[in-house]
């Protein structure tokens, strides 16, 4: 008897050789990679950056050390690649004379941007999924509209964003639109595939129940598209942060990471480490957001898959 395991039986963990490493090992791994990046960074500066010197007295011991790198690489000079410690120090140093540390200021801006990114993401994900749903139900719609959807993504967002800002009067709304504009596409493309990913036999089963399209959507297409959707949502989450930043700039929102980027971009030559600090903050926001999505994903995937039984 062909007791075929439905092909929807996918092992998220079973497929992973060795399964999930322990929390400790994961932290260690991330630490090592991060350290590697930083070491490479400073190594580049050591070899090809600008000369630097320490001239200080630490614990009564006067230190006077000068390092003159043997080479000169333009990507390693202080303007291109500030020292890691300068970036770190930028977080601690006050953003303005007598003001709060830049880290605190940026954190506030980041929260602001994250909020915008979240709302735009939700709108974009819903729109993306909605389009995906439309397309898998109508070949005609798919064939006629997908080219426009693709085209919409190749129109440089920076050309569109001001138009949106002009068309939509409310700042927050236009930020949301620009964010949604950048986020919906990965979701649409992934749902084009994910919503069709269920086993053909499962579709037959639903057909045999004369299940409506809606029922089939809810009880078959969506559940079996989960792996595709979450991949896309992660990409979209990352994109939404960028979208929110562009949107902020286009709408002339005076707060958020977008305005910080303009400022530190403008004053880049005087304090490159501040732009880098802002970029670091952007990535922290992105990581937080993608991490959030990953948590939700774990929730959705629970119980679906055969855990790794395999003895290695």
């Amino acid at each position, binding site marked *: *008897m062909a*007791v075929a395991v439905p092909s929807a039986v996918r092992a998220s963990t079973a497929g992973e050789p060795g399964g999930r490493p322990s929390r400790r090992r994961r932290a260690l791994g991330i630490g090592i990679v991060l350290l590697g990046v930083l070491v490479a960074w400073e190594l580049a500066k050591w070899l090809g950056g600008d000369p630097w010197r320490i001239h200080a007295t630490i614990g009564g011991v006067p230190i006077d050390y000068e390092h003159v790198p043997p080479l000169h690489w333009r990507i390693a000079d202080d303007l291109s690649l500030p020292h890691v410690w300068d970036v770190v120090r930028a977080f601690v140093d006050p953003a303005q004379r007598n003001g709060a540390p830049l880290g605190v200021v940026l954190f506030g801006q980041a929260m602001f941007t994250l909020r915008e990114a979240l709302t735009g993401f939700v709108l974009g994900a819903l729109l993306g999924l909605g389009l995906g749903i439309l397309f898998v139900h109508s070949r005609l719609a798919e064939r006629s509209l997908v080219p426009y959807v693709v085209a919409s993504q190749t129109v440089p967002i920076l050309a569109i964003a001001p138009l949106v800002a002009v068309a939509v009067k409310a700042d927050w709304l236009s930020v949301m639109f620009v964010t949604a504009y950048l986020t919906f596409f990965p979701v649409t493309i992934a749902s084009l595939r994910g919503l069709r990913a269920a086993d053909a036999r499962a579709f037959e089963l639903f*057909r045999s129940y*004369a299940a409506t399209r809606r*029922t089939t959507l809810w*009880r078959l297409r969506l559940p079996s598209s989960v792996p595709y959707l979450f991949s896309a949502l992660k990409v979209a989450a990352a994109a939404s942060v960028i979208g929110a930043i562009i949107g902020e700039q286009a709408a002339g929102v005076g707060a958020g990471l977008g305005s910080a980027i303009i400022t530190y971009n403008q004053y880049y030559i005087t304090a490159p480490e501040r732009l880098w600090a802002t970029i670091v903050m952007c990535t922290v926001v992105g990581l937080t957001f993608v991490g959030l999505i990953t948590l939700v994903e774990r929730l959705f995937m629970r119980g679906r898959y055969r855990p790794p039984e395999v003895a290695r």
Partner: protein
Amino acid sequence: MTADAGRPASEPTSDAAVVELSGVAKTFGAGPDSTTALTGIDLAVRSREFVSLIGPSGCGKSTLLRLVADLIAPTTGEVRVNGKTARQARLDRDYGMVFQAPVLMDWRTVATNIELPLEIMGYDKAERKRRSADLLRLVELEGFAERHPWQLSGGMQQRVAIARAIAFDPKILLMDEPFGALDEMTRERMNVEVMRIWQETGTTVLFVTHSIPEAVFLSSRVVVMSARPGRISRVIDVDLPRPRTIETRESEAYFHLVTEVREALRQREGQPVGPDDRDPTSTDRIRAEGYA
């Protein structure tokens, strides 16, 4: 059989054709790569009949069931179910189907897999729970309600699929080798259950099996098919009295029918072409004795 009271002991079929295929053919694909799965199929299944389909692997039994279920459309010919088009019958949810593979949803538990058709057809929650509990008992999987399909053995998965198919009391049951993965005893008990349900509810059953004795024992008629292209080679009426019991199986008539079906199946024509270098003697020797 205890639940037999309301049913005549003779063949309980009425004359209305519940499933009717006329001049049906089905070809998959086109051009040189196409497969003609079925050709010239004429078959009428009357109400309350229990018809078994039997035939070599790949002869088109599943295809025939899928045609009746309106899961695929015939290339030529017409399929009518309950006097309507197959499509209408499907929309009216006239039939329940057990597929050859279990086709369970991994993200659902055993119980909610069984409840799937009930959910789709709008049964309320209490009723769903009641039914799935009953059905789990019927297919002997009481303790497994909360498990997921991948935690079940092959036979257990198949039983879940059976429970799901009968959950909403369909008027017609289309069953594609439903008991193929079950051991003898479980299979017997399932047979009894299907017969009970068939008799109690007046369902019409179209049943695919590879077991000749099972086909004869259960059916009102056995449809014997031959392969490539799939055709109906014989239709054998099983006029054994009901209720059928152990005595039925010991009767001369039963034995003759089993032999008749087997003979019909063994007619060289329509058999799939076997490897030519096989020793015909050895096969034939075994073939002469029927075991399933």
